[in-house]
């Protein structure tokens, strides 16, 4: 056996160290290496990265033995087959043109179940293929919790197209409702979310055309998912693809293709007339009808002609009549007595169904949203739109809504006329106000009367203790005064919320809300305010879906009572926009923000805090979509308002400072950004120590410093942010993920790759949990983890992650967004290292996007330039590379301070390029100064330093 004694010694020390805990390594190496610093250094390097080494070899080894291109013969059993990065578990459905499989991710990255739809072999006629691809494209435009989300797509080995959808583990709508014996109210609530999903499709110019209970699943979490856009079509206005049929397809029914389901099809579909959103309103009407009565609006059996006659000419019987057909069973499945069911269905619901199912599309609800809203009004006991607005009807509604109040009023004031009852309620309320004031003061006296002997004299009681005791007293006391109790809970909740103590705040708001709902006299505006504030807490807790629901409800009330132009309505509208924004639903957010800004600007007399909020919201939306220049003036306006409103030290002022600083930093104006950031932190340390908002501020400053390469000052800030967020938010909050993300990037930049990987994985796990479909945070998590793995040489995993991140960013933002460029550049860099030609295309696309989307001279442009320039140089085209590298160097000299490694990297690259062009005199100084900078910043062993050194050595050998 050959070998060298030094090597054996190295091995021996390494193995011995590996048996010891890492914290002992330094001392152990010190004692065993006898002052041989080269040996010590080498063993230390092996130890420091041994886990990475193991992972790298696992990754590369798996790649060596990886399957070739997959085969997919759908004629045989498919369990265990791979499609893309998924492994098929079983078939879950089979239709005329395709089959649907349940599958799991097969890359060991995530536990994720998906549904994969594949065209069946032998069925790929041109028409089928076209429809299949149309469905895929339509799904890619839709992004709504009520619609099964498109995750991925591609073609199998045989060239059969497939796409990957979110897998919904649930039951069809009717089965789910019946199995759970869901009461009518709950059924209606589910239906409202179905209507919302359809409305989302309509807003994206897609008509489903085949709405029926079987195409709606209810997940195990009780959420609805709209499926099967197989015959959906883009509305006019959508640019038709050349040669694509966007017509009504009525003829296909006759030739036997499954293009519509006769029992659920609307009259205009039978007649081959144009299909519009009203067709889906009809479909929704059918779903509602069956959900309520268990019957379909047209007969189940019968000849084709009977069916046609029924659809075109017979009005369906009222839903309450239809329900009588199997009344015992229907009542049991809805948890009520037969009499109650009849009463519940007759009236409003009869009318709503009839309006939705009207033969004439123009006389149906004008949108799915209107239908949903009318159901909501019915649930709230408000007049529905479906009925002609007679005075008697309105009065009946009013009395039933205010049953308790009206009765009291009648007893106390003996009001005779129906129309004076509103007045009567007023006077009852005045009396109530007096009582309320008295009870509140008693309660506060009670709170201050300290009964605990330990706290009796002199001892300070903290605000928190005071609050906790107050909250407990309110919960148990005031049993006979729900109204007052709700108000006090609301006040307490606001205090908790202001202190950043979200869980007790949320509990109290929910209790007060439940109380207010239980008391029929509760005026709408109190309820709306309560809903609004609950929405705020939920938002701060990161629960954006719930939050949006509350704001929406509050908004409906305020719109109705106060009107659209009222500042409070606009305030709720702003926050609803914010919740949608956080969910990633930018399309829903934008009109809300814009509407609020315009209302508030018009209404404005003095500096208005709501206007500042709305401006900030709109600015954040612009920011998220890369429109920094549009965000900046809005934030400056908001900042000015908040300075006037709040003086120098207020949390909201700090928020705006923060936001403006982020925008400036993204525009490359780091020096303008930092003072704003520091002002924000100083304010928050004073007014909100340990508060999640402080975490946001320190995190952002950390980012600014990081962008300038000042990692030493950035790291403690990022860690402070994480520790606050871990402490004050639950471990699943998206903001915590964001902090971890940033720290991960910093760790990666400073060479601590394993820690970086751990941080990125935790971050990704959190955001995946929060946002199951496409979301910018998930995209970022995938990209960042991919980038760390790239640094760790785990290219196979890295490439998959980066490609997934890229695809997601395109789906989310289209092809021209700076985030798409970031993903492209990261992927290009990976391909570049593997010397794969795809790198050039990716660099070029990244560069083109950045030049268009970012201001000239932005540092991110330089990244793409350096990458592309070096690629061209290495592939024998120094002529093309030179101007790119020169521009990159200019940008970096302007962006970074004198000795920065980034400048060194660009100098060395340009030097090598000039040398290749035989301009030796110019090349020499650049090669030298580039190497010096890299050596000073990264040390001699860094890959970039070594690359620069070898360039200089080559040049010297040949010339100097």
């Amino acid at each position, binding site marked *: 056996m050959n070998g060298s004694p030094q090597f*054996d010694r190295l091995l021996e020390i*390494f*193995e011995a160290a590996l048996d010891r805990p890492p914290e002992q390594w330094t001392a152990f190496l010190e004692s065993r290496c006898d002052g041989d610093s080269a040996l010590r250094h080498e063993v230390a390097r092996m130890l420091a990265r041994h886990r990475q080494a193991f992972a790298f070899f696992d990754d590369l080894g798996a*790649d*060596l*033995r990886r399957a070739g291109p997959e085969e997919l013969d759908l004629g045989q059993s498919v369990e265990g087959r791979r499609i893309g990065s998924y492994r098929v578990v079983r078939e879950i459905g089979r239709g005329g043109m395709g089959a649907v499989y349940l599958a799991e991710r097969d890359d060991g990255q995530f536990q994720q179940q998906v549904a994969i739809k594949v065209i069946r072999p032998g069925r790929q006629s041109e028409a089928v293929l076209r429809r299949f691809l149309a469905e895929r494209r339509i799904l890619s435009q839709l992004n709504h919790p009520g619609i099964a989300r498109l995750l991925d797509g591609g073609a199998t080995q045989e060239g059969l197209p497939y796409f990957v959808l979110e897998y919904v583990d649930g039951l069809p709508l009717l089965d789910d409702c019946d199995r759970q014996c869901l009461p009518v109210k709950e059924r209606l609530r589910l239906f409202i979310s179905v209507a919302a999903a359809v409305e989302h499709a309509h807003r994206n110019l897609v008509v489903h055309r085949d709405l029926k209970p079987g195409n709606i699943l209810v997940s195990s979490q009780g959420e609805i998912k709209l499926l099967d856009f197989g015959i959906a079509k883009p509305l006019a206005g959508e640019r038709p693809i050349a040669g694509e049929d966007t017509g009504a397809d009525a003829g296909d029914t006759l030739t036997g293709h499954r293009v519509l389901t006769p029992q659920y099809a609307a009259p205009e579909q039978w007649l081959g007339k144009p299909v519009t959103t009203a067709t889906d309103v009809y479909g929704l009407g059918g779903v509602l009808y069956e959900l309520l009565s268990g019957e379909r609006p047209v007969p189940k059996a019968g000849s084709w002609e009977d069916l046609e006659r029924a659809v075109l000419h017979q009005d369906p019987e009222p839903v309450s009549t239809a329900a009588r057909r199997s009344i015992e069973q229907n009542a049991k499945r809805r948890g009520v007595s037969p009499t109650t069911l009849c009463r519940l269905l007759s009236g409003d619901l009869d009318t709503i169904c009839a309006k939705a199912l009207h033969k004439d599309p123009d006389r149906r609800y004008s949108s799915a949203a209107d239908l949903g809203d009318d159901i909501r009004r019915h649930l709230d006991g408000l007049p529905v739109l479906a009925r002609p607005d007679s005075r008697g009807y309105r009065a009946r509604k009013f009395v039933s809504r205010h049953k308790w109040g009206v009765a009291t009023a009648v007893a106390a004031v003996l009001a005779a006329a129906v129309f004076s009852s509103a007045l009567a309620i007023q006077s009852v309320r005045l009396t109530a106000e007096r009582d309320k004031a008295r009870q509140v003061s008693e309660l506060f006296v009670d709170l201050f009367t300290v009964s605990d002997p330990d706290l009796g004299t002199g001892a300070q009681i903290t605000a928190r203790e005071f609050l906790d005791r107050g909250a407990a007293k309110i919960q148990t006391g005031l049993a006979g005064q729900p109204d007052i109790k709700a108000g006090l809970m609301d006040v307490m909740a606001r205090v908790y919320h202001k202190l950043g103590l979200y869980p007790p705040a949320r509990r109290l708001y929910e209790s007060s809300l439940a109380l207010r709902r239980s008391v029929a006299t509760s005026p709408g505006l109190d309820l709306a305010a309560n809903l609004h504030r609950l929405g705020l807490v939920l938002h701060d807790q990161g629960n954006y879906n719930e939050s949006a629901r509350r704001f929406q409800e509050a908004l409906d009330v305020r719109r109705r009572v106060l009107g659209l132009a009222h500042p409070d309505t606009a305030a709720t509208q702003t926050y609803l926009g914010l919740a949608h924004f956080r969910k990633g639903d930018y399309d829903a957010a934008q009109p809300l923000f814009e509407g609020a800004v315009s209302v508030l600007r018009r209404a404005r007399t003095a500096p208005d805090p709501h206007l500042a909020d709305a401006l900030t919201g709109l600015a954040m939306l612009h920011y998220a979509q890369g429109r920094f220049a549009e965000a900046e003036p809005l934030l400056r306006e908001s900042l000015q308002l908040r300075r006037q409103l709040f003086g120098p030290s207020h949390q909201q002022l700090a928020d705006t400072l923060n936001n403006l600083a982020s925008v400036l930093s993204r525009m490359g104006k780091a020096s303008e950004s930092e003072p704003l950031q520091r002002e924000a932190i100083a304010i928050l340390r004073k007014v909100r120590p340990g508060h999640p908002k402080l975490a946001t501020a320190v995190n952002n400053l950390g980012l600014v410093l990081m962008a300038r390469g000042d990692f030493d000052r950035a790291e403690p800030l990022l860690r402070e942010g994480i520790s606050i967020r871990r402490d004050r938010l639950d471990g699943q909050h998206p903001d915590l993920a964001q902090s971890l993300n940033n720290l991960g990037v910093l760790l990666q930049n400073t060479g601590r790759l394993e820690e970086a990987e751990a941080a990125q994985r935790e971050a990704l796990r959190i955001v995946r949990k929060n946002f199951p479909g496409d979301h910018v945070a998930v995209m970022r998590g995938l990209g960042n983890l991919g980038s760390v793995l790239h640094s760790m040489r785990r290219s196979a995993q890295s490439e998959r992650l980066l490609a997934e991140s890229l695809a997601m960013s395109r789906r989310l933002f289209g092809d021209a967004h700076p985030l798409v460029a970031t993903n492209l550049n990261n992927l290009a860099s990976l391909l570049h290292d593997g010397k794969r*030609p795809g790198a050039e295309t990716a660099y070029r696309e990244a560069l083109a996007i950045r030049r268009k989307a970012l201001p000239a001279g932005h540092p991110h442009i330089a990244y793409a330039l350096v990458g592309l320039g070096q690629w061209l140089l290495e592939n024998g085209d120094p002529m093309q590379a030179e101007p790119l590298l020169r521009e990159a160097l200019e940008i970096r000299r302007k962006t970074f301070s004198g000795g920065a490694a980034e400048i060194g990297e660009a100098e060395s690259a340009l030097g090598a390029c000039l040398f290749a062009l035989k301009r030796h005199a110019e090349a020499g100084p650049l090669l030298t100064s580039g190497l010096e900078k890299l050596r000073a910043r990264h040390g001699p062993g860094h*890959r970039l330093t070594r690359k620069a050194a070898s360039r200089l050595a080559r040049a010297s050998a040949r010339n100097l």
Partner: protein
Amino acid sequence: MGTAADVTTLLAAFARGKREAADELIPLVYDELRKIARLRRFRWSGPHSPGTTSLVHEAYVNLVDQSRCQWEDRSHFFYFASVAMRNILIDNARRWGRQKRGGGAGELPLEHLHLASVGRAEELLAVDEALGKLGANNQRLSQIVECRFFGGLTVEETAQALSISPATVKRGWDSARAWLFKELGPLPSEAPEQ
């Protein structure tokens, strides 16, 4: 040539100490591995994923008359086959490298023996180069890497193939990976932007 009996005889001869038997054995193993790999391209996507059986196992089953074969022969075979796999893979990686340098843009056609992703050829060559250095310092470690990494053998199989204890294999595999990775150095990459 190439029958099960020949291979068994050669293995037995090698086990008795006839080193030159290896010279005849290697090409047989080499051919068989290439053949299986080409066929397996079309079967690897089935329920038996590539991880469950290594190519080396399959070559053994195909080549060796197992009724006549001793346990030690199997072990020797596994080592030979691992070395053969290394040669095949590195050969391919070099060819890809050449084609890429000469062949301009576009990924390589798939009809080539597709044992590893084309994109990792460079890395594979770097590992091979470092492995050469490792072998010069400590042959045992480089043999362990050949069996575990290129041959896809388990710890137990590697221990049998090299007639050493499983504990030695584990230790050696750890040290070798750490050392090789250190030799490779990190890759630079653009840090993701926020």
